[in-house]
């Protein structure tokens, strides 16, 4: 394979691997800008990934799978919202519990529905057929051929999120609630309602992120499939300064590490697999260490809002 095709293949793989991270990272954008730390993104991704497969398995349609994923992710996020907003639980601990619960629940469901251990049956994944004439365009064809529909959806969603957050009244309310909830409350914004909406939205997005993994890149659900991507998305969110576009760039950077791993066989220099596997995690830590000084979290991120308390 010549150098040029290799570059195209790496770019395509980067976009493909970034997609689950972008969905989940955007989920984090909503939740954290409204002031709720969501470390349970990993668990919501797992839930989404499993239910996408379940939906596709039951109905034969991957589109229903995506709906299942969003609904299941939203439902488990509602639990996180209830715990951290109403019951004022420590949000990191609540998120950890969500992750533990989701992992166990997905494995339980595999056992219950598919009667196997570790992975589900193979299901219909979201089909991706681009017309022949586009495929025949020299570079663009190879690039587009290496993607799937989730990739386009994710990229569009970045701009939609950016617009919603910075150009609409709803976005202004989200940011107000995340920066200074009592001031927002004084102005008649329902803090709890906004936070609930955002956390549930983040769960739905993380669920779709999981779906993009299980019925986008792959066609089944396997235990340990997400491999910490929820956490990496969270790191991307911090690295991207809690902004949608910044998060996208960070996701692309982290995905680049995985893309190198996929294309490692074709490269002239060979590193052991384990080194490539470590790459995204090390990159995440380096990114946080080098750039986090410049980023600022929403002021009320992670602090429960107690009505009537100064």
């Amino acid at each position, binding site marked *: 394979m010549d150098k040029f095709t290799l570059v195209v293949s790496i770019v395509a793989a980067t976009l493909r691997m970034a997609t689950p991270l972008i969905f989940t990272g955007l989920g984090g954008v909503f939740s954290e800008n409204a002031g709720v730390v969501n470390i349970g993104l990993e668990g919501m991704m797992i839930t989404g990934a499993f239910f996408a497969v379940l939906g596709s398995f039951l109905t034969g349609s991957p589109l229903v799978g995506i709906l299942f994923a969003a609904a299941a992710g939203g439902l488990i996020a509602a639990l996180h919202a209830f715990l951290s907003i109403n019951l004022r639980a420590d949000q990191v601990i609540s998120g950890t519990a969500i992750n533990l619960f989701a992992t*166990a629940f997905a*494995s339980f469901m595999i056992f219950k529905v598919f009667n196997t251990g570790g992975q589900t049956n193979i299901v219909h994944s979201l089909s991706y057929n681009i017309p022949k004439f586009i495929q025949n365009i020299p570079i663009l064809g190879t690039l587009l051929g290496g993607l799937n529909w989730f990739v386009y959806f994710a990229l569009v969603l970045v701009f939609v999120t950016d617009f919603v957050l910075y150009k609409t009244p709803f976005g202004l309310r989200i940011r107000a609630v995340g920066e200074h909830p009592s001031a927002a409350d004084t102005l008649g914004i329902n803090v709890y309602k906004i936070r609930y909406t955002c956390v549930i939205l983040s769960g739905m997005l993380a669920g779709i992120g999981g779906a993009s993994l299980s019925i986008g890149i792959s066609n089944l659900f396997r*235990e340990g499939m997400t491999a910490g991507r929820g956490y990496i998305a969270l790191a991307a969110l911090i690295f991207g300064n809690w902004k949608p576009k910044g998060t996208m760039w960070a996701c692309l950077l982290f995905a680049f590490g995985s893309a190198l791993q996929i294309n490692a066989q074709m490269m002239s220099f060979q590193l052991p697999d384990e*080194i490539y596997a470590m790459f995204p995690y090390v990159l995440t830590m380096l990114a*946080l260490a080098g750039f986090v000084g410049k980023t600022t979290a929403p002021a009320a991120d992670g602090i429960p809002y107690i009505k009537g308390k100064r």
Partner: protein
Amino acid sequence: MVSNSETKSNKFLLAAKYVVRSLAFPLFAIFISFFVAVFFVMWSKGYGITQYFTALTDLIGIIITGSFGSTDQTLQTMNYVTPLIFTGIASAVSFKCGIFNIGVEGQFTLGILAAAVVGQIHGLSPIVHIPLIILSGTVAGGLWGSIPGFLKAKLGINEVINCIMLNYIAMYVVNFVIMRTPAGIHGKGQTPIIQDSAKLMKLNGVSFGIIIALICAVVVFWLLWKTTKGYEIRAVGINPHASEYGGINISKNIIFAMVLSGAIAGLGGAVHLSGTVYMTTDLLSFIGYGMDGIAVALLAKSNPIGCIPSALLFGTLESSSRILQINNIPKEVVYLIQSVVIVFVATDYIVDYFKEKKRKKGAVVNG
């Protein structure tokens, strides 16, 4: 004038009240988690709603016979409990300092790796080899814990994400050492069994490690509540601003607590390897003791002594998971119980909520 015996009995009553009050909530959490878990048992067994108590007795019966059914099984269970005591204490130390060391998993894993490598050294006397293998694990865990501690203290980076990243990196470090260096058996995906001189002694089949774990719990309790350093750690955990105003160096204490936490986790790994498993395989996923340690510490309210009964509970669940599977109950029920326990402990605000409600009612009556 109050007589001496009266104050004594008063004191005793207060202490008893305190014990009951601090135990009530964990026990309630355990009760609720079993209550929830039974529904999953019913679902997996295909029971109807009327058979709730059948499912409950099934679950508890299987767990008890699976973990304590015979002497052999009881001893086996102890080998599950020991590492959980260590990882529980490790998490508890970090919680006390106000940091969330979710990286106990990675620190434990590296403790295992260090011990697996050091345990292979030929021709040492057990008197040298056993302290050496334990020291190696402790140092490895402590070093791994110092990274997020240092990054948090000096650069202000959230320790949670760094810890999680380090967990994954630790896993791949283990795989790298096993697959690519002479420390692993070539082409087999595991390290050789350690030398006899590095194996911890056994008492009736139970690794001596449980004694080390109990000693560790007492020492950490003493350190946290009876020494100046422990006072500083807890002060930083309760209110960093106030403690800084009082002349306590926050960053020094955060780093110290993380190193201590990591060292205890690494010690646990080394003890687990040299006392129970003797070798390690390459890892496809986390070993899990570190993650379970979080649940152990939360249930124990971050009290090192409390980690002992808490680890006993989770270790019992863990050791019965195979028997559960044989009885058509997915072993994930164990993790579901754990997660419900964590949820309940995290929401101890509920208690304050009802207290507040009570107080408000009282105020209305008085007014």
